[in-house]
């Protein structure tokens, strides 16, 4: 009974709390604090380590993120229909996910060490900058442990029919904690620590992810604004 109650909280209650805080937090932040919405770059204070750390981290994480989307939201039946067997899928996931995950992991450690050890950067950081990096280290450590150690050396774990199914059940508002009962503890911890990341997300520098400027591609080069019309005029 005790375990059931904990399971309900972890896999049916907390996910919705997290999603609610994530969405409402962003709305609140966007509406009230545009001035605080920034990538919070410290490149001007130190460029050398940022160049290595930031690029490894961001590009690595981008691929890891896409991998998660496919792994959790695309049911195995679809990839099977595309002619990819489960074994093949698993191998690709481990190689590609493992490699990009490792790159991002090295990157996040460079960023954390840089922030801690370079005087200028440390002195101009606030608690949220360290919190975000620490949470990322925890989440990514667990994720890499699952991918590169548990899956390879202990036992290949089929997360698509368990965790994937659970994510789908949460997103379709029919959260089913039963999918999670036999999931190894290290996978469970990976997910729970991710809750923490998503909970602080709207209130930290992580909001800059939404500002990736894809609309820049369409935009005119020169922008004018008029006081009466607030018209955006383009030149060339």
């Amino acid at each position, binding site marked *: 009974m005790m375990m059931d109650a904990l399971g309900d909280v972890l896999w049916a209650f907390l996910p919705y709390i997290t999603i609610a805080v994530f969405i409402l937090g962003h709305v609140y932040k966007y509406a009230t604090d*545009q*001035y605080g*919405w*920034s*990538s*919070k*770059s*410290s*490149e*001007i*204070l*130190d*460029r050398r380590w*940022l*160049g290595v750390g*930031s*690029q490894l*981290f*961001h*590009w690595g994480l981008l691929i890891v993120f896409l991998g998660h989307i496919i792994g959790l939201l695309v049911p195995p039946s679809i990839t099977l229909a595309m002619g990819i067997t489960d074994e093949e899928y698993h191998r690709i996931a481990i190689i590609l996910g493992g490699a990009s995950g490792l790159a991002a992991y090295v990157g996040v450690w460079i960023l954390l060490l840089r922030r801690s050890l370079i*005087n*200028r950067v*440390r*002195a*101009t950081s606030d608690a949220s900058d360290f919190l975000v990096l620490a949470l990322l280290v925890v989440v990514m450590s667990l994720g890499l442990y699952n991918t590169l150690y548990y899956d390879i050396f202990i036992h290949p774990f089929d997360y698509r029919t368990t965790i994937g199914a659970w994510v789908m059940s949460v997103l379709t508002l029919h959260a089913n904690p039963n999918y999670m009962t036999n999931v190894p503890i290290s996978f469970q911890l990976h997910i729970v620590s991710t809750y923490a990341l998503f909970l602080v997300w709207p209130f930290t520098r992580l909001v*800059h992810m939404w*500002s*990736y*400027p*894809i*609309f*820049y*591609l369409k*935009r*005119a*080069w*020169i*922008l*004018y*604004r*008029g*006081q*009466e*019309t*607030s*018209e*955006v*005029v*383009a*030149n*060339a």
Partner: protein
Amino acid sequence: MKVLANVSMVINLDKCVGCNACSITCKNTWTNRPGVEYAWFNNVETRPGIGYPKKWEDQVKYKGGWVLDHGKLKLRIDGKISRLFRIFYNPYLPELDDYYEPWTYDYAKLIEDESGKQPVAEPKSLLDGRRIDLNWGPNWNDDLAGSPEVASMDPNLEKEIKLEFERTFMFYLPRICNHCLNPSCVAACPSGAIYKRMEDGIVLIDQERCRGWRFCVSACPYKKIYFNWRTYKSEKCTFCYPRIENGLPTVCSETCVGRIRYIGILLYDADSVLRAASVPDQKRLVESQLSIIMDPNDPEVIKSAKENSIADDWLDAAKKSPVYKFLVKWKIAFPLHPEYRTLPMVFYIPPLSPVLKLFNGVDEGNLSPEDVFPKIDNLRIPIKYLANMFTAGNEELIRDALKRLMAIRIYMRSLELGSPNKDALKEVGLTENDALEMYKLLSIAKYEDRFVIPKSHKENAMNAYVERGMCGYDEFKDAVPELKRFSKMSLRIKDKNTKNYQLQQKEGVEFKD
């Protein structure tokens, strides 16, 4: 033709004494805050020298401005797609050490020291509080200090311009944001936070839209955008727009003890900006920029200006603009580094050099123009150096301007001596009236002649009556029906809804005569 107005400045280098009153008053007004200690919206450099930040003119390093690529203008930091790929790390960003690490002094030590020895207030970093050694600052090579090590790194110096002691020269170069007609910072900003104001041409950064991607810092060839390390947003010279809107000069101009700054309106053809910036021969960039500065007395221009809701008092101001006179009528003012192709709207009157060497032992009163003008090339400051800086290498323009400045001196001196000598004026194509007017504007430089600034027509944009007492209470504006139209929130929505109006979108525009 789409005529718009741009508030512009002329800086008379001939009279700059390098006192930095402009820099200090600007700093006290705008950047006296943590995060922008190192930001000097106005700074004064000694030339030759590497300027501030270090070697800002080195565009191989910083990738500022535009370049012509097969007749087409493109940003030196590359196109839009590359921006999306470099967004996690901008390799062309200056580092803080290219400026300097801001510091203060440990003043408490002066009164608390109990060692019995002479106490010293040690410098400490404003970033992390640790004691630092000072080895660079905002005006480190003031008055050629550190030369030739420092001055010889100046990109404008060429081999033939020697720095030998007996030929040493220097002059001061005050710099603010140029509020360009073709601003590369605006083009490089991925967030669309930087914009040019339609009414007065002032280029501003929307602090609420800036996301701290930092490409503006690289793209501005003048390095006049500074990244605030505390708010993580870019900031720049605002041309003191709250003062300009009220008809007052910028703080740097107001407090200039030499009265060397002039502010006035220029009308320009917004439809031709791209064409003017794309002329293939960089030596013709000054000329092409002048070609899109419109004559405020031309009926066609006035008609088009009115169509773009430029008010009558602004047109009057444009006719009286001292900037227009220096730039177009007398052709003695030039943009800084036109070869960056941003069409900067702050202009410089090049400095004459000491006349002692030139006229050594010769009675100046009996000089004829023929004696003076051939020697313009022997002035202490090499024409070539000035041309590299102000005309993209076009020495003829600088030579003509210096001749004109010299001609007024010859004429005014002869006038004082009771026998007007018009020969010099004739040779440079100026009338006596021109000379007297130039003398009045350059030498007497009365406040009301230097600054011809029409007030902005805020009555068209806001309801000042209802807005009384609302300053700082933006969030309540949505509650007042009369104000709703002007509140930030509704402006933002409107901003999104307005269609992008393409002024000019032709491929491969070429400049033709």
